[in-house]
């Protein structure tokens, strides 16, 4: 069952001025309930604009965005309710922190939903646990935290609203390898535990390959591919022509394949080892 659908969605910035630019061009896609969707595309391909359509921060120039089958702009006054259902974590979300304590900041969303103080705090603590923020940090000022902790606090602020769809725009940008790894596995864990839909925008093909069920590729404001992750990454050459890459290990396998090796595109190193080891053994290169 699709949770978000777009129908011939088109969006132009600055309509009626000399700076008019089509950012999204007749995009019709659907995002399934409970899936983990990766969204890739080079800079300026319309990724960020597209996700801002999903929670009604931008209004389509033409076409429709449906959330669980209902047009989100059917009642413009109730657009706030849409934003609680489609949670959005922007790039560098730590820049949005403002409250005196981390706990209060994470409570901002839930309180805007009209929840009671107790309920909001309960949700905030649960969200903090999801992103691995220790309890003792909750009473600190958000400006005292380290960069990685701030990022977690900001993400918790969106998760605390318990949205049906969670959208993350490059959540790992600027984090060190360990921070990336942790954050990514926490997002994965969150997705598995709550069974809700997650949309991840990323420039890191490795990240996408690791966590996404399906991948949507944007180019020039158009949705050019939407398929299962391994199928999208098997089209390595096409992706490269769009200014994107495939994960390094996938590239190795695709090249082997071009040279006549009987392998298919793997997404992770483990999968690649599984394929290659038997082959190598057969050739006698590795002694089993």
């Amino acid at each position, binding site marked *: 069952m699709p949770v978000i659908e777009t129908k011939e969605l088109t969006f132009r910035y600055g309509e009626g001025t000399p700076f008019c630019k089509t950012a999204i061009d007749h995009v019709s896609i659907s995002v399934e309930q409970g899936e983990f969707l990766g969204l890739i595309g080079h800079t300026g391909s319309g990724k960020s604009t597209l996700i801002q359509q999903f929670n009604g921060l931008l209004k389509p120039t033409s076409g429709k965005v449906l959330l669980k089958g209902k047009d989100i702009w059917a009642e413009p006054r109730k657009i706030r309710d849409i934003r609680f259902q489609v949670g959005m974590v922007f790039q560098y979300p730590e820049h949005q922190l*403002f409250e005196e304590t981390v706990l209060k900041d994470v409570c901002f969303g839930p309180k805007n939903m009209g929840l009671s103080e107790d309920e909001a705090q309960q949700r905030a603590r649960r969200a903090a646990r999801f992103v691995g923020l220790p309890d003792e940090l909750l009473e600190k000022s958000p400006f005292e935290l380290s960069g990685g902790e701030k990022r977690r606090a900001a993400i918790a602020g969106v998760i605390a609203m318990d949205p049906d769809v969670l959208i993350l725009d490059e959540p790992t940008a600027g984090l060190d390898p360990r921070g990336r790894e942790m954050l990514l596995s926490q997002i994965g864990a969150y997705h598995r535990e709550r069974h809700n839909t997650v949309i991840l925008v990323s420039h890191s093909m490795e990240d996408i390959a690791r966590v996404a069920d399906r991948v949507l590729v944007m180019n020039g404001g158009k949705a050019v591919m939407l398929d299962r992750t391994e199928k999208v990454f098997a089209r390595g050459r096409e992706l490269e022509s769009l200014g994107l890459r495939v994960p390094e290990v996938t590239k190795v396998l695709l090249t082997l394949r071009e040279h006549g090796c009987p392998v298919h595109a793997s997404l992770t190193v483990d999968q690649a080892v599984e394929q290659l080891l038997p082959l190598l053994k057969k050739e006698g290169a590795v002694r089993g």
Partner: protein
Amino acid sequence: MVRDITLGQYFPGNSLIHRLDPRMKILITFAFIVFIFVAANFQGLAVMLLLMASVLLLSGVPLSQYLKSLKAVLFIVAFTFVLNLFYGGGTTVWSWRFMRITDGGISNAVFVAVRIFSLILFSSVLTFTTSPTQLTDALERLMKPLKVLHVQVHEIAMMMTIALRFVPTLLEETDKIMNAQKARGADLESGGFMQRVKSLIPILIPLFVSSFRRAYDLAMAMECRCYHGGEGRTKMKQLHMSGLDAAAAVVSGLFCVGVLFCAFHFPAALR
């Protein structure tokens, strides 16, 4: 959206007006503004309006842009227009209880409204056709004589340049923060006055924090490149006066003489 606010209003182009030396443009604009007030009657104002029409057309900036800039002062103009209606002599046109509108009042109101509109239009021509960097460059050069009085001309110009440079950046930042807070259900549109002021806190605090962060970063970057103020500093883009500037000065001078002529030959309009 926030992005629609025109502050850095530069409209790129290559018209005659665009090609004038920014120093000359500032001087001429200044002279025009003075002469709008020298023009004491409708005849003088007509000369200025004629000049204005030709400058607006020459600038190659769409007229709709100029109209937009007028919209910003519409309230002030309407306010002074109404006030002026009730001040003035002459024959009574309309009266109701203590209120009285005279033909003198009407002509006063029109006169003042046209003055304010011309003021805005002339300064719009300057800001539409001159990039902010050119503008501060020219101001720095024009203010150079003040160095004698130990005014830190270069530093002031540098601060202006930096401030102008960061206006679009901060607007973009504001937009981003607003979106982020809206995504968390911040309600910026409804509620009473106090409610709205309170709803600005989640936007202002992050904006403040990021402004300081940017200021630190910029100061660091400037120090890394050994910036030490104006002493012995050369310019990459030198300003040069050309024949075009001389011509512009002469033409503007002629119009100003025309205004002076009208001022002496016709009676003053304000009564």
